[in-house]
């Protein structure tokens, strides 16, 4: 028996309504907007596969696709798909222009063979975003910025909590 091999996609959702420069600084503003859940992202991707690749595409991916993680704060997520069909899912994600009622685009940040590498690059990405936030806060003399180390820890523990 050959074991089923997977691909792990780390992706980012960029929304039209918050300027992308502040895409992650929207800790407060995206709260007002309806936050997306893992389920919303999953169904958006599946619908897009249905539209672009038809029944055949959905059939191919249905067994193996699962969205393992999606953070409504940083708007990044991790998705698992069997190795033979990852290009279908990736292509479908490229064609997404809207999730629920919010216009957006999806960009793949990392494509890996194991979940570990995706987690590591997700942590790296989070760290960059937090540092960016800090620089923003400094530029605008915003003193109420929270402890960064605390944020680092939070993001790390959340991402590492993902399971195969």
């Amino acid at each position, binding site marked *: 028996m050959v074991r089923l091999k997977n691909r792990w996609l780390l992706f980012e959702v960029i929304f039209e309504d918050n300027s*992308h420069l502040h895409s992650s600084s929207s800790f407060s503003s995206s709260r007002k907007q309806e936050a997306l859940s893992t389920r919303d992202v999953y169904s958006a991707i599946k619908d897009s596969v249905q539209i672009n690749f038809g029944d055949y595409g959905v059939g191919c991916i249905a067994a193996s696709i699962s969205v393992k993680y999606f953070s409504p704060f940083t708007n990044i997520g991790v998705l698992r798909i069997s190795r033979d069909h990852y*290009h279908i899912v990736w292509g479908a994600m*490229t064609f997404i*222009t809207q999730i629920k009622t919010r216009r957006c685009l999806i960009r793949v940040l990392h494509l890996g063979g194991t979940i570990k590498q995706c987690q590591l690059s997700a942590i790296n990405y989070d760290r960059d975003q937090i540092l960016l936030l800090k620089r923003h806060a400094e*530029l605008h003399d915003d003193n109420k910025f929270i402890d960064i180390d605390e944020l680092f820890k939070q993001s790390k523990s959340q991402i590492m909590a993902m399971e195969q």
Partner: protein
Amino acid sequence: MFYDLNLPYPTQPNIAQQQTELRKRVDLLIKFGYQVVAYNHTITGKLDKANPINKLETYNDSPDSPSGKQQKIEQLSRITVVIEDASQNYGLSSTNNIISSYDIVAVQPTNEKIFQNACGTLEVDIITLEMGSRLPFYIKHGPVGLAIERGVYFEICYAPAIRDSASRRQLISNAQSLVRVTRGKNIIITSEAQKAMELRGPYDIVNLGTIMGMNQAMAKDCISTNCRAVVMHAKTRRNTHRAVVSFEPISSLKPNELWKVGDDKKNINVGKTDFKGKSKVKRIRLSKDDEEEEENEAEISQDMEI
């Protein structure tokens, strides 16, 4: 290094809204990791207006990178001439001042005869076709082979595929036939995005390329190496002598390049090309018939552009 060689320039650049929209798009391109962008100005009919493209000031104040490094993007200008009538003379030569004020020249042929003409003779860098709608003719091996030989590139714009489903079908079908005919050579993929939300990241485009029938390496070349070749092609067309030699004054040399003229800093009379300067001219790989002309232009001190 990733390139996006087709970002439509606003038709009325004075309107603030269009200007911010352009800025949004460029900001997003930087975020995605593109390093070169070309603003596109499309013209149907006569070339009579001067180049309207103003490059945005560099992004010095962008706090986008966490390391605090400056984020820069190289900006080019490009003109796309839509050719509808083969008999009309569009003046597409580098002697035309309007044409040579743009960095890149593209043509969009609208029928087969003009397409053949564009592949075979026109002095351009890019041949673009409206792939979001049905093409009025088949793309044939003959002219395409000629264009590949001449180093002219074909363009696929992906934004129509993101806009709506009907043009997505057409684009995939047209792109696949183009890839089949060219065997994946001499293709570039560009955005043609009217809005920021129509842009995609470089690796997403590589994956899109695999859907259009290329393999990953070919698709990656379409947004990097091939685009660089287009820019180089444009450069050699514009300001070189027979695409072999170009001239630059010694004063434009950077301090670390001064060894090329066989001298160090203090002896060089910056900005002046007097008789003494003439003797410092360095001649690099010239064939005999070029030599004579060389003498005439030797007043300008020269350096080879690599």
